[in-house]
């Protein structure tokens, strides 16, 4: 029996020319989103981190840094973008029955005309480059289960690194995740790598199984100087 057309098929053509543009532009969009993160981080370094002794801060580090980063990412944007950045945005799609709270993103890009479409960024404090357990756990339990980013085939992990080297973080994450990390070609001078995964898609859901994770190491102390060689 032949199948009729869905609303989506009627609205969005899937002729090769449309599909080619959509695929290429979706990939380019992620580079633009993450460019703003790096620019926001540069502002954070110049305006906050370089003016204090960061290692004296002990409490609420992850939320504190993320709250300072969010407005700086927004400032880096031109205002023309079809999306905005939000701190603490909820993922309604993967919520459990009440009284459970829906998953909450540290940061997420939210599309202006469809607020269900979110591109999440999960932040983790790494006091040392060897302490990646929580980072890897968040990856495995949130991104790779589709609890995070159900409608996006990409997302990012932000490592707020207090001590040690980004390369050691990447090496430890790679070992723990049993996957290879590749340098992002759009950010050659930044500690920014990507890994590709096949996610576990929940029963009866049709989310994209292929998932690309961006690993960005934001050095918070010692080396927290603006990196102006890019963009």
């Amino acid at each position: 029996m032949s199948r009729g057309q869905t609303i989506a098929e009627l609205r969005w053509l899937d002729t090769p020319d449309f599909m080619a543009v959509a695929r290429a532009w979706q990939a380019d969009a992620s580079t633009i989103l993450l460019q703003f993160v790096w620019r926001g981080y540069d502002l954070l370094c110049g305006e906050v981190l370089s003016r204090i002794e960061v290692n004296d801060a002990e409490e609420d580090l992850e939320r504190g840094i993320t709250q300072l980063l969010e407005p700086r990412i927004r400032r880096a944007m031109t205002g023309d973008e079809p999306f905005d950045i939000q701190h603490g945005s909820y993922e309604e799609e993967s919520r459990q029955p009440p009284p459970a709270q829906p998953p909450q993103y540290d940061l997420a890009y939210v599309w202006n005309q469809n607020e269900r479409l979110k591109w999440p960024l999960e932040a983790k404090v790494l006091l040392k480059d060897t302490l990646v357990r929580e980072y890897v756990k968040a990856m495995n339990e949130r991104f790779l289960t589709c609890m995070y980013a159900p409608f996006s085939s990409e997302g990012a992990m932000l490592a707020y690194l207090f001590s040690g080297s980004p390369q050691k973080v990447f090496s430890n994450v790679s070992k723990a995740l049993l996957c290879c990390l590749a340098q992002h070609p759009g950010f050659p001078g930044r500690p920014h790598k990507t890994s590709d995964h096949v996610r576990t898609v929940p029963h009866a859901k049709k989310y994209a199984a292929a998932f690309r994770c961006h690993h960005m190491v934001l050095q918070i102390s010692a080396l927290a100087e603006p990196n102006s060689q890019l963009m």
Partner: protein
Amino acid sequence: MSVPIPEPRPGILDGLKDWDDVDARVKDAFGFKDAEWTLVEDLFNYTLPDFKGGADSPGRKPTRHNGSAGDDKHLKAYCEYFIRVLRAGFGQDKNVSATIFEEGKGELLPLRMVAVHLDSPGRQGVKCERMDSPALRERLLSLHRKFLASRESASGFVSYTRVARLYDSVKIKGRDVPTIFVIKPDQIRYWTRSMALRDADEVATDIMMWRDVGERRGSLEKEGLHV
């Protein structure tokens, strides 16, 4: 209460000569970006006068001065802002261009049509093109009569007007170029820069949600949206 009002600054009123100076100072004090300031300007130039005014309010006027073809500053600005959003979201290197269709001979149509071309080879910016085909003219009139013209609700107090957005490919330099056609009534309020920002936001979301056919079909059937 914490409200996003700029802190008072010494000398903020120095050197003001006219209302434009006041606007410039306010824009600077709030740190508005151009897109945000566009929303403010359109609110004061069109939305509020339309709300308070009648059938001849600024936003209800036709897009062309004196109702004649060849003066398309509103549609040009609409297309430029539309393109800005797509480039901001997907990259400044993107070949996005737009075509404004103008009537050839005969009466002006009660609607306007623009085409936004994604990834068009060797084309940039906005250009105007005459549509001389009587068949196309008749199809647009028919579309207007059937779908776009204002209709009043049963109560008679609320009227609504549809707009159309169509996705199709056109041949440019021998290549099939994905194109979005936007068709709306010939009134300025439908073709403001604010409307361009919103329309382009919707198209950007569409592009991000494009998936191959199998993935989409399963997802939407699950939600009971099969038609």
